[in-house]
């Protein structure tokens, strides 16, 4: 019989090994050698915290009382794991993309990062888990007492409580040491996970060893064992179908909803593919854990006295058969089961409490918000450490005051029913986009209340919370509301009854609440992203605009993530944007990533609230929502852009077509001009040649003839000279080699000069010039000769081309926007619209009138001159004839008297 001291030494040695393993794993991970620490095997073994001290010891007791029913507790998780493709895959993917830290965080995140909902789920989890922690303390102290029972002189009863206290303190120390090293949920707790993987092996080995010994050592082999099973009183207990159904459902749901299971299954998952291994390895583990439970129970009932507690058969049976070392191993197995459950459960719960209760309150109580002084990281870590201590302390108190009796043994299933109230909101949130925050709140809230009323509060026993009379007759004598027989269903087992009503009404409230309420934009965004997590891999865009400084964000990030991590995050972001230094541009994408990173440390709701405090912009605009959630909006936007572009293209094409037409017309004009100019040059040349030959060959010419011929030659040569002069003039003007000599004069004098100079043109026709002499008395300052040249050209054109029977030219001087304008308007047919664009071009000619003294260069020269002088000449349409407007240079007009 191992004495107390030996037991204590073994326990301490075992704990020391756990600490060493955890330290070693942490150091290894810190050095970057993660290797097999992240292997699927470790992952699968860490899931074994599902098998707690209660299941380790209690399964045998359960089997001794109800036969095979204990298997339901393992069959539910088996089905969920085997069907991982349906549910777990999505859950893990969502948790990874949204950086989920706990069940409460998942619910809060899915329903628009609601802090209230997160708090409610946290409360539910704490109320549901505390008794469970008490249960673990009970199972360990009970097993201690088994050894103590044989050596009562060295281990008096009060020491049991001392044992419980020391146990609680030790687990608190371990959990705080390895569970609150870092904040980011994606930085996994390697030390803890490796330690519980080791514990998983210990408890499996212990149970298998006891089982093998019982079947082959005490039971006499498989065949004999089967006979004994069929002959045992266990076989007499009938299988309760409703309980079988309810417990299978309950345990399967608990695998998803228990905070500690969510922690190891989802949060600590580092690779989705680990699920593939776990999908068969974890059911195998569960099967091995439950394989020898019935034989142990059967043999225990046979051998041990009727007073023995079946819950302790795993330890007492080897002891009774003289296998002390086997009993010690079994004890260590139970110890492992209890401690690993408490450690992970408190880590999970402390995360929830700090992220969903402490931080939101802290943020609310500080009016200056998250940006001002105070180290948030320290607040989070401290609150986490304190909540670990508080949770284990609560568990201890619960254990002390509940007396540690049979009432506590039943709490395992009761606790399951409590945490499973999250299931409808969780599944609805994963698969139904219509699920809303109101619906989730109603469902979880109502389920919580029903659980309290029908199962949890009555579990304290009669006359503790509910009086025996109320339990029997219902509150105020209303029989329909009896806690164990709600609405008259009094034939059911209390657990089945509670599962039925709480699940049905919870789901009904959830669905109804979702159907009648309308979600906020953020809820709809999160809903779309989570439900369609396999389709939408693009980042959600929660923040539209911001006026926040990168430095403020960096300061906050440093307080939460720690200086080194925050700086590396910001530096990486800045580098991705192509900037040097630590301060990136504050884009919506960056704020999004920033918030998500914070969410990994303090939960989605808190991270959202903190980011929201710093960013004054609206949280999420409908436009953002549309752009992300509704692809049609993007398509519409795209097609609008396309339309705009195509309109632009059409405009450009039209301009090109116009230019092309102009070019074609010009080219035609140019051809015409070339033939014209060659004709014009040829005609005088021909006559010059002809008359000069006559003068050379004919000696008998009269002097009168000679003079006449010479004059013709001279006239023709003059004509050629004028033509060449005009071409030269234009060339000079165009290439800017002209000199301008400004002089002061009255505009009237310049016009007089032009009118006089043109009086010889087409002198035969009657031509009236209509002037307003008084308006012309303005002094101008410009190159008078050049200006006169323009006027002469315009007046001469009117004289040549005006085809009215009584040609008449109006010359008007007006002021336009402070500048002088001189209009020359005749009463002819004017210039056709399609030619108006061409008349100022070189070589352009509207008609083939022989009277043309020029060669279509006049207006082109005019335009060049006016441009050189700083004014302009344009065609003035709509005047009832050809109209030209000469706008005089600005300076001259301003200096006019």
């Amino acid at each position: 019989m191992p004495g107390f001291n030996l037991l204590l030494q073994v326990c301490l040695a075992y704990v020391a090994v756990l600490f060493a393993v955890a330290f070693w794993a942490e150091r290894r991970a810190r050095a970057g050698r993660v290797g097999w620490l992240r292997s699927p095997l470790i992952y699968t073994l860490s899931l074994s915290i599902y098998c707690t001290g209660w299941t380790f010891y209690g399964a045998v007791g359960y089997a001794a009382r109800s036969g095979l029913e204990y298997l339901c507790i393992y069959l539910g998780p088996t089905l969920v794991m085997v069907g991982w493709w349906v549910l777990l895959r999505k859950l893990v993917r969502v948790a990874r993309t949204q950086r989920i830290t706990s069940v409460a965080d998942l619910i809060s995140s899915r329903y628009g990062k609601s802090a209230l909902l997160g708090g409610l789920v946290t409360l539910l989890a704490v109320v549901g888990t505390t008794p469970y922690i008490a249960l673990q303390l009970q199972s360990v102290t009970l097993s201690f007492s088994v050894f103590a029972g044989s050596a009562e002189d060295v281990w008096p009863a009060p020491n049991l409580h001392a044992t419980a206290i020391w146990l609680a303190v030790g687990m608190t120390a371990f959990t705080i040491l390895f569970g609150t090293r870092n904040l980011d949920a994606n930085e996994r707790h390697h030390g803890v996970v490796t330690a519980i993987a080791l514990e998983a092996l210990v408890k499996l080995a212990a149970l298998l060893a006891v089982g093998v010994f019982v079947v082959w050592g005490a039971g006499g082999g498989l065949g004999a064992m089967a006979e004994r099973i069929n002959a045992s009183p266990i076989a007499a207990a009938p299988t309760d179908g409703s309980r079988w159904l309810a417990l299978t459902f309950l345990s399967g749901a608990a695998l998803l909803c228990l905070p500690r299971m969510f922690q190891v299954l989802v949060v600590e998952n580092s690779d989705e593919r680990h699920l593939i291994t776990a999908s068969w390895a974890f059911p195998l583990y569960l099967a091995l854990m439950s394989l020898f439970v019935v034989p142990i129970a059967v043999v225990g009932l046979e051998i041990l006295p009727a007073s023995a507690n079946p819950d302790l058969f795993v330890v007492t049976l080897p002891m009774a058969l003289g296998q002390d070392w086997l009993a010690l191993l079994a004890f260590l197995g139970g110890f492992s089961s209890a401690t690993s459950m408490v450690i992970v459960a408190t880590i999970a719960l402390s995360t929830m409490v700090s992220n969903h209760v402490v931080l939101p309150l802290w943020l609310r109580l500080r009016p200056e918000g998250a940006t001002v002084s105070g180290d948030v990281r320290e607040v989070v870590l401290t609150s986490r450490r304190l909540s670990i201590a508080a949770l284990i302390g609560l568990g201890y108190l619960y254990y002390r005051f509940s007396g540690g009796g049979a009432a506590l043994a039943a709490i395992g299933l009761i606790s399951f029913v409590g945490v499973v109230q999250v299931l409808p909101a969780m599944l609805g949130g994963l698969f139904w986009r219509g699920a809303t925050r109101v619906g989730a709140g109603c469902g979880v809230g109502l389920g919580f209340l029903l659980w309290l009323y029908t199962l949890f509060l009555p579990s304290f026993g009669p006359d503790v919370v509910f009086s025996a009379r109320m339990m029997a007759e219902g509150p105020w004598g209303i029989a329909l509301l009896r806690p164990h027989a709600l609405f008259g269903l009094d034939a059911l087992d209390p657990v089945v009854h509670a599962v039925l009503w709480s699940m049905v009404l919870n789901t009904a409230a959830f669905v109804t609440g979702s159907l009648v309420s309308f979600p906020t934009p953020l809820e709809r965004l999160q809903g779309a992203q989570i439900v369609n997590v396999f389709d939408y891999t693009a980042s959600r865009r929660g923040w539209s605009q911001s006026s926040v400084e990168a430095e403020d964000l960096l300061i906050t990030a440093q307080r939460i993530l720690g200086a080194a991590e925050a700086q590396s995050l910001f530096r990486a972001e800045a580098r991705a944007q192509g900037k040097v230094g630590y301060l990136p541009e504050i884009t919506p994408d960056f704020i999004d990533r920033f918030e998500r990173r914070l969410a990994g440390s303090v939960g989605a709701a808190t991270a959202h609230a903190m980011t929201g405090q710093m960013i004054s912009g609206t949280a999420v605009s409908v436009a953002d929502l549309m752009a992300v959630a509704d692809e049609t909006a993007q398509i519409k936007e795209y097609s609008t852009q396309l339309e705009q572009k195509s309109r632009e293209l059409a405009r450009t094409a039209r301009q090109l077509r116009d230019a092309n037409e102009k070019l074609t017309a010009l080219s035609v004009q140019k051809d015409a001009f070339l033939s014209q100019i060659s004709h014009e040059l040829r005609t005088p040349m021909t006559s010059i040649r002809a008359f000069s030959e006559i003068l050379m060959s004919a000696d008998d010419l009269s002097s009168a003839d000679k003079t006449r011929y010479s004059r013709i030659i001279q006239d023709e040569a003059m004509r050629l000279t004028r033509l060449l002069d005009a071409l030269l003039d234009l060339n000079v003007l165009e290439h800017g080699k002209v000199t301008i000599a400004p002089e002061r004069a009255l505009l009237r004098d310049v016009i007089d000069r032009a009118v006089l100079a043109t009086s010889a043109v087409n002198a035969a026709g009657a031509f009236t010039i209509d002037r307003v002499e008084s308006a012309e008395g303005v002094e101008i300052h410009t190159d008078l000769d050049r200006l006169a040249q323009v006027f002469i050209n315009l007046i001469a054109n009117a004289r040549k081309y005006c085809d009215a029977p009584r040609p008449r030219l109006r010359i008007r001087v007006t002021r336009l926007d402070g500048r002088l304008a001189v209009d020359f308007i005749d009463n002819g047919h004017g210039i056709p619209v399609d030619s108006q664009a061409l008349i100022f071009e070189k070589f352009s000619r509207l008609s083939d009138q022989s009277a043309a003294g020029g060669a279509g260069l006049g207006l082109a020269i005019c335009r060049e001159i006016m441009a050189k002088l700083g004014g302009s000449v344009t065609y003035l349409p709509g005047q009832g004839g050809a109209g030209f407007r000469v706008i005089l240079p600005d300076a001259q007009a301003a200096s006019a008297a």
Partner: protein
Amino acid sequence: MPDQRDKPLFLARQGYRQRRVIDAAWVLPVFGAFLLLVPVLWDLGPSGSDAPRRLAERGVYIFGVWALLVGGAALLGRRLRDVASPPADEAGAPQGDAHRPDPAAAPDDGPV
């Protein structure tokens, strides 16, 4: 099944196999649930209450189903390893077939 208008009507043999493996991954837990809920029917009826029960054989049945499920999941898992490639990073772009509409994804019945 999700909308498949943008895909060829018939898949290559490998793709076809992969889809049937995914179907099997859905069916396995349903079969398992049915087989494991058979005990509900064991003691139904008036004759069941005091007749001696073959507890050992019942245990063998359940552990047999359990072994089948473990074996089935292990077999399927080997085939599904290629299909279930996770995204490169928790916020990063998906790799490989993650672009495909997933058979496991729920149809969009949302209000948007």
